[in-house]
């Protein structure tokens, strides 16, 4: 109808409209205003639906277009006012019959809305009908259903013989093996396969009898037939619909005519008037055409080769035959598309099918039930037979039901989301452009350059006609680089060594030492753990202990220490379990542990709606993957297309399908939800390891959840990655984002991981180099490190960002090499930005900002920073001599597990308070502290450690009184101060001045100044003499004084901040 309107417009015809307009104004508009607009006009958009313009009606709401122009019966609005299909509107009472008729008439007449132009009408898209899955025996379908075989009802064990396949249509047409049962029967039983080639779903395996079938119990070819005594009710020129879900393969020795699914008698016997059948048959002489109806007389052969696309993959095939003689008037549809007769291939055979002849020996059958039929080989999951030609909506509804069950989808515009389209502005956003190979700029002052990135820095300063800031002294650089790379200050010995090293490689020697230190991974692994919201409990209702989460934590630390290429690092976390098994047990185990990435997020274990809980976990996984790996806020697209970025809801559900096809839980029974923990064998003689990792489950393609609601479902989205990346890469404005075969049995995580960790992905490398830059300098080249979208900040120096990214890719994703480039640069030696205000132009605005033409020099400066919570605790332990430098392992998990109580089989940490003694007495580095969600220990929570409920790309740096209280009074700090004081007095030969000197060297890496020595002496004296001590012995006062002095060093700004 809409097309019709368009044609009218093309022909230049005027609207035949006056009467219609009157109809609209007199009847339709008042009705809409009175009964509908309260909830569906302007800002009132219940169900996402507005009814105040023609466009709005055609666009519709959550459940699809409100009207289909010209088709009242198929329009949701009309169904709703008629109270059809479970819809009932308006809620305050049904319209009168006259009103309903008026509405239907208006739709039938083309839904004319005065003031609407014809062009607007043709732009709308009436094809957007949503069909919902339909049970094969629902409503009127039940009466037409003749046979319903389903493999998912079998309770038997995998690999068991299937001598009988029960009919679920209610008509008692159970299929049985025919050999030894029926006269002339040759068909053996099928085999039940729990995880079949039908995307892992249950099926009955049909043996070809050639010995080629793995997993079949029967040596005979499988043939299952119903009893002839209960013939199907299909006669004469009857219409019918046959649907089968199968995955069949070709095999050596295949019969020329292979009967898949037969109703009637396929043997022609040479008499054109006699034997007849309706069947799905593979016709080898016709290049494996799909034959239908008639039998070996080839009454209806669809185009030669027509079965070819259906081999060796899971398919849903529906053949619909309309009533009537085969020639001329009868039509055959294959999955809703006209398949015969086609002009280029007319149907051959008889003019009519006088009758479907039911055989005396077998009824409806599958496979080689009879001696003269060809055998089939493969899996059949479900079979349906109707004695009508199902309407297209019914046919599609049934196919969608089967599709959801089998993880398949019917490639039709009505059910499958079209690839998203992107406009030029979206495609031109900087972050989606390929990473450029930018040569570093030429600069006049070559002597200033230490690593190539300095050229970018110097060029920027020169652009402002400014000389670069001065360099820091060696001590400051050493302290800066030590904290940055290993999270610990240099020891006095390390300071001395560096200062004494006059070789040109002195700086490089330090960097090599730091990057080779096992403490490097403890520092940089922690950065990654911030991003992936690492914790050892589930948060939410149960906050249950994840006893083996620490293995993932250590995996991350080890990965940084061993400089695992970053692309491998990402792939292992997303899909380590899916990588090909190697000969090395250690590598295989590591890869399984890596997928703990998918497990460590928050989980709502007590959520009643388990599917909702699963989808929330998927959402969390998408959020983390988007922000941590791709620098995009993908989770926004759960409810709607991203408001600012080129991320569509279909992109979200393409990803969600991948993550939903992986299962974190062992079972989802109420109150017993438990995630996967299992042992990984470690070879002969070695203890198996307990790990926490997900498992692959049935793969599925999700439907769009309109407004994020799982009860209002839209179209199916094939699993895949982000459309915009593909669109930019191919230059197309409409690009498939599929990176996964939507019918593959595995989840698609490996494909996704490889797509993310590809040098061609424009985001991944940029995100990483920007993070490393940000963590070294305190500010990223892109100021919003987990948002490279349009709402993030644009790069301060796009050329520098791309140069770093391209070098990083060239190096084979080598993170340590990137560190070297940065920390050995002249740029990294510059004084911190706060030391002068030179070159600090206005901070870029967070929104847009593309008109900025000055380069923000603060991106090239180190920014003074407070020690992170972990650095603070570790530095105190190191200074006091209390640090245990050995790597942590299971201490945290076992501590939490030991504190757990068991309620309803959930393991919860009970009373692990933020002030638990464990946190005070533990001596290993802070990265190994137990991390309980919602109950971080004081030292972490007070000093802005990452909240493990979400992704943390930039930690806050707060300054509050409670931090002062902690530093003054907390037992941990006081213990470190005491140990520090004891360390000073260990050598009893030292004079007080020497002790003061040692204290400064330990705490600050420098000597005490004369002022400090004098001031300290005065303090010690005044302290010892304080009347507050009462009668305390001198030695005790003395010890307290030294402790107080040491504590003041640990609390001082020089200790707490890095320049």
């Amino acid at each position, binding site marked *: 109808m809409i097309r019709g309107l368009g044609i009218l417009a093309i022909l230049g015809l005027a609207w035949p409209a006056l009467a219609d307009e009157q109809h609209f104004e007199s009847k339709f508009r008042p009705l809409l205003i009175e009964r509908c607009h309260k909830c569906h006009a302007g800002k009132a958009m219940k169900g996402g639906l507005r009814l105040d313009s023609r466009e709005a009606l055609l666009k519709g709401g959550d459940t699809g277009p409100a009207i289909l122009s010209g088709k009242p019966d198929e329009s949701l609005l009309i169904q709703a006012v008629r109270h059809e299909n479970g819809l009932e509107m308006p809620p305050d009472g049904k319209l009168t019959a006259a009103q309903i008729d008026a509405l239907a008439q208006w739709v039938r007449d083309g839904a004319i809305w005065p003031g609407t132009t014809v062009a607007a009408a043709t732009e709308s898209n009436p094809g957007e009908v949503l069909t919902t899955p339909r049970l094969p025996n629902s409503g009127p379908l039940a009466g037409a259903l003749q046979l319903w075989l389903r493999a998912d009802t079998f309770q038997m064990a995998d690999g068991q013989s299937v001598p009988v396949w029960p009919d679920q249509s209610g008509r008692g047409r159970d299929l049985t093996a025919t050999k030894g049962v029926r006269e002339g029967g040759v068909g053996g039983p099928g085999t039940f396969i729990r995880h079949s080639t039908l995307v892992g779903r249950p099926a009955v395996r049909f043996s070809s009898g050639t010995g080629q079938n793995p997993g079949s119990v029967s040596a005979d070819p499988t043939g299952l037939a119903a009893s002839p005594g209960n013939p199907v009710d299909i006669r004469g020129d009857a219409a019918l619909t046959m649907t089968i879900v199968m995955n069949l393969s070709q095999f050596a020795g295949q019969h020329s005519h292979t009967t898949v699914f037969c109703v009637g008698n396929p043997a022609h016997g040479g008499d054109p008037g006699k034997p007849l059948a309706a069947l799905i048959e593979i016709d080898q002489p016709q290049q494996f055409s799909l034959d239908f109806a008639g039998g070996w007389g080839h009454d209806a052969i669809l185009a030669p080769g027509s079965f070819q696309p259906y081999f060796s993959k899971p398919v849903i095939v529906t053949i619909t035959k309309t009533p009537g003689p085969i020639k001329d008037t009868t039509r055959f549809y294959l999955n809703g598309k006209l398949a015969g007769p086609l002009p280029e291939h007319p149907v051959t055979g008889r003019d009519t099918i006088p009758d479907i002849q039911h055989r005396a020996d077998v009824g409806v059958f599958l496979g080689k039930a009879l001696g003269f039929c060809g055998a089939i080989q493969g899996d059949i999951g479900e079979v349906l037979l109707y004695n009508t030609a199902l309407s297209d909506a019914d046919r599609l509804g049934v196919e969608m039901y089967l599709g959801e069950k089998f993880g398949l989808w019917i490639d039709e515009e009505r059910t499958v989301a079209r690839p998203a389209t992107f406009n030029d502005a979206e495609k031109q956003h900087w972050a989606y452009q390929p990473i450029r190979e930018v040569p570093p700029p030429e600069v006049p002052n070559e002597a200033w350059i230490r690593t190539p990135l300095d050229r970018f820095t110097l060029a920027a300063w020169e652009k402002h006609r400014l000389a670069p800031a001065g360099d820091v002294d060696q001590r400051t650089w050493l302290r800066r680089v030590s904290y940055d790379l290993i999270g610990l200050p240099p020891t006095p010995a390390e300071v001395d060594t560096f200062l004494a090293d006059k070789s040109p490689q002195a700086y490089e020697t330090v960097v090599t030492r730091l990057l080779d230190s096992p403490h490097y991974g403890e520092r940089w692994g922690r950065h990654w753990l911030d991003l992936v919201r690492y914790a050892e409990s589930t948060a939410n209702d149960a906050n249950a202990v994840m006893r083996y989460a620490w293995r993932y934590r250590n995996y991350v630390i080890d990965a940084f220490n061993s400089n695992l290429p970053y692309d491998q690092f990402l792939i292992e976390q997303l899909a380590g379990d899916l990588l090909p098994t190697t000969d090395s047990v250690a590598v295989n185990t590591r890869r399984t542990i890596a997928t703990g990435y998918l497990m460590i997020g928050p989980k709502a274990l007590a959520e009643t709606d388990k599917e909702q809980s699963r989808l929330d976990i998927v959402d969390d996984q998408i959020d983390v993957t988007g922000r941590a790996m791709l620098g995009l806020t993908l989770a926004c697209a759960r409810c709607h297309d991203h408001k600012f970025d080129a991320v569509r809801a279909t992109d979200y559900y393409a990803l969600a399908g991948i993550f939903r096809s992986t299962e974190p839980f062992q079972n989802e029974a109420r109150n017993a939800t438990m995630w996967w923990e299992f042992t990984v064998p470690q070879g002969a003689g070695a203890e198996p390891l307990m790990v926490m990792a997900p498992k692959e489950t049935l793969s599925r393609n999700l439907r769009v959840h309109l407004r994020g609601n799982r009860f209002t479902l839209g179209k199916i989205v094939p699993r895949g990655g982000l459309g915009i990346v593909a669109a930019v890469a191919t230059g197309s404005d409409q690009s498939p984002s599929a990176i996964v075969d939507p019918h593959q049995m595995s989840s698609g995580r490996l494909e996704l991981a490889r797509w993310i960790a590809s040098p061609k992905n424009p985001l991944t490398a940029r995100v990483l180099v920007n993070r490393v830059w940000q963590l070294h300098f305190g500010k990223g080249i892109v100021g919003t490190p987990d948002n490279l979208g349009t709402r993030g900040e644009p790069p301060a120096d796009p050329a520098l960002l791309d140069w770093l990214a391209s070098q990083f890719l060239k190096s084979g994703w080598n993170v340590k090499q990137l560190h070297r480039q940065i920390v050995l640069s002249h740029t990294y030696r510059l004084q911190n930005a706060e030391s002068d205000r030179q070159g600090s132009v206005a901070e870029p605005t967070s929104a847009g900002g593309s008109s900025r033409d000055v380069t923000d020099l603060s991106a090239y400066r180190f920014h003074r920073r*407070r020690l992170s919570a972990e650095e603070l605790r570790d530095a105190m332990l190191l200074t006091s001599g209390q640090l245990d430098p050995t790597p942590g392992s299971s201490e945290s998990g076992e501590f939490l597990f030991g504190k757990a109580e068991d309620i309803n089989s959930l393991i919860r940490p009970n009373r692990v308070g933020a002030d638990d003694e464990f946190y005070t007495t533990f001596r290993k580095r802070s990265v190994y502290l137990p991390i309980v969600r919602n109950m971080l220990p004081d030292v972490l929570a007070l000093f802005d450690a990452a909240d493990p*409920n979400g992704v943390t790309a930039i930690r806050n740096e707060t300054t509050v009184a409670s931090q002062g209280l902690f530093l003054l009074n907390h037992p941990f700090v006081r213990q470190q101060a005491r140990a520090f004081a004891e360390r000073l007095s260990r050598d009893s030969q030292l004079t007080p001045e020497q002790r003061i000197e040692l204290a400064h060297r330990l705490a600050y890496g420098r000597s005490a100044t004369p002022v400090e020595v004098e001031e300290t002496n005065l303090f010690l004296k005044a*302290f010892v003499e304080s009347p507050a001590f009462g009668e305390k012995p001198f030695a005790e006062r003395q010890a307290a004084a030294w402790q107080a002095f040491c504590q003041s060093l640990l609390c001082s700004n020089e200790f707490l901040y890095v320049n």
Partner: protein
Amino acid sequence: MTGFTRRQVLQQSALGFGSLAVAGLMAGPARGAVSGPLAPKQSHFPATAKRVVFLFMHGGVSHVDSFDPKPKLTEMNGQPLPFAKPKFEFAPTGNLLASPWKFQKYGQSGIEVSDLFPHIGQCIDEIAVIRSMNGGDFVSHGPALLNINTGSGVFARPCLGAWTLYGLGSENQNLPGFISLSPSLYHGGAQNYGSAFLPATFQGTRLGDGSTHFKEARLSSLSPGQAPELQRLQLDLLKRRNERHLASQGSDSALEARIDSFEMAFRMQAEAPEVMDISRESAATQSAYGIGVEPTDEFGRQCLFARRCLEAGVRFVQVNFSYPRNYWDAHGDLRNNHTSNAAKVDLPIAALLKDLKARGLLRDTLVVFGTEFGRTPAAQGNDGRDHHPHAFSVWMAGGGIRGGVTYGQTDEFGYYVAENKVTMPDFHATILHLLGLDHEKLTFRHAGRDYRLTDVHGHVVKDIVA
């Protein structure tokens, strides 16, 4: 930095503690000079409430047994609900169950309150009862608690108190601006008083937890590690060091703020215990709150403590009656559970309302009584009710609330909201409105998007605003 630094201001305003000191700090010339994230801020429009006390009842108080009388339940006791039960239920329930408690009319307004809360009943003319709360589909405690406290049952979001502190700052820089008393360690734990992506400055300071008697509650690290004279000596040494360091570094507000924070900590450790010391209250006051006698001792202490905090300028105090020691979750044994819980809180809450009123504080102090969901009008077992987020009651008083009114209605069984549904975003929007904050304007930019407590929802319930 121009004008006074925060340090200078605080040094100069060497005032005593308590409401006078706060008034002095706020009204005097120092106002506006206090800097930093916790400095008092202008509200969007004139506020009727300056501070909030949120009385949170953990476990789910039964609405049909407290503030939403349903004679029809008595009439049809033991009969099935004549229409469909909700799609989401925590567990299956049986037939309708009459309330074991009688309802009386109270005050001028004649609003009916059950015999569980006779003391609150006497204050009913100060109170606006919302009988049409709807908590969405969150039928479990964890998500439901997070929903009422943070506006989201699923994602990590800042809580109401954190948003309030972010919006308004604190009126006393020597005390935490947001204190949560005895919060549960369960059902979201610290997330229920956390700041999520807001800076940690705005998170609630926890005092005690649901597993410990409030008498035992201590602020972490508040007890000085050594005698105050000695600590002063130590702080002076630290200060001299830090000031030399600052001088060598050029000006840096971060370093300055750090120096201030130690001084503030030093004052806080001296002054916070004073506020927390309820023994400074007269015997008559303590007795009015039910302190010293059971079963009211603990909640009485919490309520009196809350009043002292509010008086001292704390912006938001959440008083939790929380799991596992205190819990309204009456799946069975409804009579005993609700009787004993109500006996613990009824008198102290009424005492708090009366005390605030007597001190002239009720006028601009918003008192909120809330729970994560109601309970099913149908029985669970013989004497129990299940979780029911589909309709329940909360109330508010003071701070610009119209007293003596009810808002919204449930159907005749109390199953669904029949009129004027109040969603969680509506509830939050209304509280922010009373504080002078527009819930649509109170935003924080995080991960590329402006977040709100009310997400994209929320309407102020104007009918209960005076």
